[in-house]
């Protein structure tokens, strides 16, 4: 990522960086319930509102279910809306995730990624992000605090684009990013205003033009509605890239759905989401200095999955390790592994793949773990044989 930038450099933790972006986005309604590790976001926003720094309605709801339900109502009313949650909170919102997307709301949600219970844990897994993968929300993964800020701003712009009209989730790893402070460049308010003018809602609730939102929809038209939603959702990819480019022009930071390192000549690659991408790259850089042809692929955009780009960067590699910070019981792979596998399924050439389960509940992904994964990938490249489709790293065994 380039660091040529406009704006000021300040130090914030991930949660505060998101809250700062939300303030600059001049949201109308914040509807949220406290849950670790995103609580700092809503605290910061409540502070902005109560200090008169942000002219917004802060709805201090009684549950996450209501947080998202109220957000749906507010978004349909025409407001720019933000919410934030994590883990169990996302699970409690679950049914409304589908509704928010189907009703084409433009809510932006920060998800402080955290493991599902049991056992209760407040640290990072991607269980919550994965739980939302099929619901029709655009999903971004931030690798660091800068990205959490940038992606939040871009998410509003993307969700509210009249060619998009889908809600967005900005994932940031619980504690690793939410509570950790890094330096980041923040834009001037004026630049944000230019990039993100007030929401111009499509089909808002309007007594002058009464519409019926969310009617019963039986076998007569339900499938046509889903077909339409699917088409529109899949069509968002070029628009997301367009907004990424505009943001690049504004901020000097270039986002791409797929981020790569060393993939020009990599023979083995790791595919990973979130804050671990940097850790993997850190190790990969050191290995490449020693002549090992390793690469890193991280997804800034998880939904819609940038399939063509994935094929482009991975099809000529010999072995790919797909890292999942979650587990899918009884499935032949965890969600990212399944996605990558499916994306490559009809590629003319395709690598051998294996799935790495790591980091559940905040277990640290150390350089040793990453090294071991690359070692294994290279072994497989040599032998041409995947003995274990799925391995766990960093687990006492």
């Amino acid at each position, binding site marked *: 990522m380039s660091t040529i930038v406009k704006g000021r450099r300040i130090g914030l933790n991930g949660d505060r960086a998101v809250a700062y972006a939300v303030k600059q986005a001049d949201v109308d309604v914040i509807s949220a319930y406290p849950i670790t590790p995103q609580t700092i976001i809503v605290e910061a926003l409540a502070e902005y509102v109560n200090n008169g720094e942000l002219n917004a309605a802060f709805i201090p709801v009684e549950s996450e279910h209501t947080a998202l339900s109220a957000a749906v109502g507010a978004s349909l009313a025409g407001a720019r809306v933000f919410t934030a949650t994590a883990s169990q909170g996302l699970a409690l919102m679950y049914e409304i995730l589908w509704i928010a997307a189907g*009703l084409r709301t433009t809510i932006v949600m920060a998800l402080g990624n955290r493991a599902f219970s049991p056992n209760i844990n407040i640290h990072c897994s991607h269980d919550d992000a994965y739980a939302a993968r099929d619901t029709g929300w655009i999903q971004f993964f931030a690798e660091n605090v800068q990205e959490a800020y940038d992606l939040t701003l871009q998410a509003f712009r993307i969700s509210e684009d009249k060619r998009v009209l889908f809600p967005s989730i900005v994932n940031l790893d619980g504690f690793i990013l939410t509570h950790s402070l890094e330096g980041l460049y923040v834009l001037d308010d004026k630049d944000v205003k230019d990039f993100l003018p007030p929401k111009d809602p499509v*089909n808002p609730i309007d007594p002058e033009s009464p*519409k019926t*939102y*969310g009617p019963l929809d039986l076998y007569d038209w339900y499938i*046509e509605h889903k077909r*339409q939603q699917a*088409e529109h959702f899949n069509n968002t990819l070029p628009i997301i890239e367009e907004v990424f480019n505009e943001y690049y022009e504004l901020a000097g930071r270039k986002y791409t759905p797929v981020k790569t390192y060393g993939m020009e000549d990599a023979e083995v690659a790791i595919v990973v989401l979130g804050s671990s991408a940097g850790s993997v790259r850190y190790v990969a850089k050191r290995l490449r200095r020693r002549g090992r042809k390793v690469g890193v692929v991280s997804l800034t955009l998880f939904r819609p999955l940038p399939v063509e780009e994935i094929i482009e960067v991975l099809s000529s590699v010999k072995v790919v390790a797909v890292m999942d910070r979650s587990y899918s019981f009884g499935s032949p792979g965890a969600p990212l592994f399944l996605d990558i596998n499916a994306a490559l399924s009809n590629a003319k050439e395709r690598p051998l793949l294996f799935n790495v389960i790591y980091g559940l509940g905040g277990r640290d992904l150390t350089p040793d773990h990453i090294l071991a994964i690359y070692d294994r990938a290279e072994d497989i490249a040599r032998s041409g044989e995947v003995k274990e489709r799925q391995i766990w790293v960093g687990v006492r065994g």
Partner: protein
Amino acid sequence: MSIRWKSWKELPLGMVIPEPATSLEFKTGSWRALKPVLDENKCIRCLLCWVHCPEPAIERLEGDRVRIDYNYCKGCGICANVCPVHAIEMVMEGGEE
């Protein structure tokens, strides 16, 4: 509203019915087994039938006269039941006219 779209491509955006009162195209009068028949001569224009009709299929006209809209009347018989002067009689559908 043209309710007959040919494809999902033509559907209104999102899960929205963009116009009000399209149920007027759905004639629930076909549900009726018993039919209320109003004797205007007996009617005292108390409006009770109009007030209580669930559809509403009873229109309030000038001078508080009422008219039954058989396109929508499901024949529940509430109007006949609440009428204090028995100006509405329920008859078998198809039998009377």
